């Protein structure tokens, strides 16, 4: 290499980064080709002038503070692109300048020892491409999160429908109350809870009197209408926490937690009276029906669901024997009721 060639500035001019050297008063000592290209200020015009004079709008920015720290305390600093707007008016292309679209800048401010003089260097990196890439990735991540939320909502909807279907399949097709399997399940659940909390469970069986005769006289459709109206009446009169299910062709089982025998008796009597009073118009005929109901309560009448169901069978037998249209609790004689 020929003697006298300034190797350092050849190298710095070839670099794809901006290099600026400032003296203690922030006057430019060195300004590489990259800086010329992207600021539009030739090196000979930049040299000897303060950075704040070249770029008046940098006053008060974090870059100025980092330069002061480097010059005063010889401590290096970093000015990152994501938390500041680009501090220097540097542009990738001439047309960006008109729109003031600055290139994204990562700036390292490094103090250098030059005899006793306080000097620092700015290394400016163009990170525009990386910033754009990052932004695009963030947007994609947000879009992904949004479409995930949509999928999740659809999944929730499907699950809600599924549980609705499961609930519907647990129902008696004619009357809409629970089917035998599920009312028995409710009975077991109510027993388990009552046993654990020392609570009560009342069970009541509602039988339509002489349903077979109604079917023979008026047809099965009339019998069905009567069963439907009884199911409706049970749901209307009994409390919300009561579970109603169809046990047999002509009978409904009701499970009521946390209730007294007196209350159950009162409610059952109400159902009996209203059922007997109603007249169903069916194909020009007025059809009436009565019901018999049996009641038993845990723990008073039995310790298990089987024992209570046996109590109900006995009570129903007594009610039918006594001439129907009665509400009878276990242990009561028909006269007492």
């Amino acid at each position, binding site marked *: 290499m020929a003697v006298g060639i300034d190797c350092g500035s050849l190298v710095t001019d070839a670099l794809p980064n901006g290099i600026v050297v400032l003296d203690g008063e922030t006057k430019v000592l060195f300004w590489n080709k990259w800086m010329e290209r992207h600021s539009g200020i030739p090196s000979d015009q930049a040299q000897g002038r303060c950075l704040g004079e070249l770029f008046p709008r940098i006053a008060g920015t974090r870059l100025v503070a980092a330069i002061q*720290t480097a010059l005063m305390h*010889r*401590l290096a*600093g*970093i000015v*990152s692109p994501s938390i500041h707007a680009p501090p220097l008016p540097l542009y990738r292309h001439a047309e960006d300048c008109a729109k003031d679209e600055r290139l994204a800048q990562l700036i390292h401010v490094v*103090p250098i020892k030059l005899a006793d003089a306080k000097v620092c260097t700015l290394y400016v990196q163009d990170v525009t491409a*990386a910033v754009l890439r990052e932004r695009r990735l963030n947007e994609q991540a947000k879009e992904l999160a949004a479409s995930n939320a949509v999928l999740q909502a659809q999944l929730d909807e499907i699950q809600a429908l599924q549980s609705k279907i499961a609930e519907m399949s647990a129902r008696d097709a004619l009357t809409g109350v629970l089917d035998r399997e599920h009312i028995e399940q409710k009975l077991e659940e109510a027993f388990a809870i009552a046993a654990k909390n020392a609570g009560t469970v009342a069970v009541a069986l509602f039988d339509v009197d002489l349903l077979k005769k109604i079917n023979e006289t008026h047809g099965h459709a009339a019998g069905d209408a009567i069963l439907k109206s009884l199911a409706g009446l049970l749901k209307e009169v009994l409390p919300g926490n009561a579970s109603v299910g169809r046990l047999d062709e002509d009978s409904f089982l009701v499970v009521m937690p946390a209730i007294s025998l007196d209350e159950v008796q009162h409610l059952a009597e109400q159902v009996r009276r209203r059922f007997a009073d109603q007249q169903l118009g069916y194909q020009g005929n007025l059809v009436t029906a009565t019901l018999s109901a049996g009641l038993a309560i845990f723990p008073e009448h039995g310790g298990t669901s089987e024992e209570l169901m046996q109590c109900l069978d006995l009570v129903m037998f007594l009610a039918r024997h006594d001439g129907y249209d009665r509400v009878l609790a276990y242990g009561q004689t028909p006269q007492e009721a």
Partner: protein
Amino acid sequence: MVEVSELQRDALSEIINIGVGRAAASLSQIVRDEVELSAPTVLFLEPSEVNQALNGVEFDELSVVSQDFSGPFDSRAMLVFPEKNALVIVGHMLGEMVPPEQLSEFEQEAMCEFGNIILNACISSLADLFAVEFEGSLPSYRHADRQTLEILETSVGDRPVVLVVQVDLKIRKQELQGHLIFMMSVTSLSELLDSIDHYLARQGIV
């Protein structure tokens, strides 16, 4: 271990608090809201005691910004935050919450600048009050956990003294804790204590 008096420790704590106070002002500008910083405790420990001192804070995943300082005494200074706190800090600096995955390159640089501001502020306040000069390297960011933090300690066998400063940060009503850690040799520690004594003498305290 070199003995550190109560007075020396209090004085150092005061000086570091001046530094973090300056840092808080710069950070407030970036976040565009008041940032409060305080350094309530200063401990001189042996490397083996550091992990224990950091116990209690959820310190499994760490975000570490380090810088080397040289001058009358030399030190590797680190700002250590639990990673999830670092994510919150970066979120406040970027103006939007960062998803709790790994910090991306730019978020690492943002964290780097955050550490740079605090570490430089502490060192420059030491330099101003001790009337001395330091030189500081560029900050570097890394992710670490308890194990790698230990390795880092053992790799500096010539720096058996660790100065651990608890840092309490408050941004937009959110309180976050981290630590400043200065690792130095016994010689550097003696120089630091000498500087503190000179400072106290100039203040007419000793």
